[in-house]
């Protein structure tokens, strides 16, 4: 298993725990056991689960298991793959911080944080597609 795949999978496991922790916080909030409100936590929870856990796990396994690109570069461009990993995780981290901040008190800084997160997350999908497309082919 390539190093980057191990990184994708281990990071996805951490996000799974974070998603479940965020979901636990939401349940505590709903039960009135947490005195302060946590605005913006629901969309963050969903994206921690769907992007951080499910999509990241898929990205890692696809990078590892899909048909080889060429004998010299079996997994395509390692630069694009690292860019996928970096932009997905930085984008998700910015969103996780920025969305509750912006929901609680909208400000220019948190607004731009969310715009940066959006750009990074889009970049992760685009680079994943660019690096995977040619590996999906008939044999």
């Amino acid at each position, binding site marked *: 298993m390539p190093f980057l795949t191990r990184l994708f999978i281990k990071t996805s496991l951490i996000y799974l725990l974070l998603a479940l922790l965020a979901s636990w916080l939401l349940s505590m909030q709903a039960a009135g056991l947490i005195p302060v409100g946590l605005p913006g936590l629901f969309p963050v929870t969903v994206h921690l689960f*769907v992007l951080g856990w*499910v999509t990241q796990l*898929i990205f890692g396994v696809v990078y590892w298991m899909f*048909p080889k690109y060429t004998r010299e570069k079996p997994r395509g461009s390692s630069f694009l793959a690292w860019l996928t990993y970096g932009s997905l995780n930085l984008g998700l981290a910015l*969103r996780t911080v*920025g*969305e509750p901040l*912006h929901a609680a008190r909208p400000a220019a800084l*948190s*607004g*731009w*944080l*969310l*715009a940066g*997160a*959006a*750009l990074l*997350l*889009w970049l*992760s*999908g*685009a680079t*994943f*597609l660019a690096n*995977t*497309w040619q590996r*999906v*082919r*008939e*044999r």
Partner: protein
Amino acid sequence: MPRLSVWFIRAALAYLLVGFTWGALMLANIGLRFFPQAWWLLPSHVEFLLAGWLVQLAFGTAFWILPRFMRRPFHGNEKLGWAAFFCLNLGILTTAASDLTNGTALLAAGRTAEVLGAALFAWSVWQRVKPYGG
């Protein structure tokens, strides 16, 4: 990788990009308020990423890696698989169009096509869920 898997997986990748684009527009709009209609994209964002990306990637990968038969046709009835591909994609696009236009009849038609697509796919791979060489 069989041709049907290539189509399923490449379609999944295309939906991934469109779904991420919709999501990025909505997220950036929360911060910068430049696109007031951005929330209209939410239902199709969910549709593209759940049915278009995740379900379709699973179908394509399953059709590729499930145990094959010992005799031709190795992947079973491929026509059923192709019918599943067309029904599923027709369903996703119709459902997404209904989300953007608030058309309930379109939504019903889209969901019907999706159910049919899933049923056809299950039928096409049912016999391949078996021990290797069996």
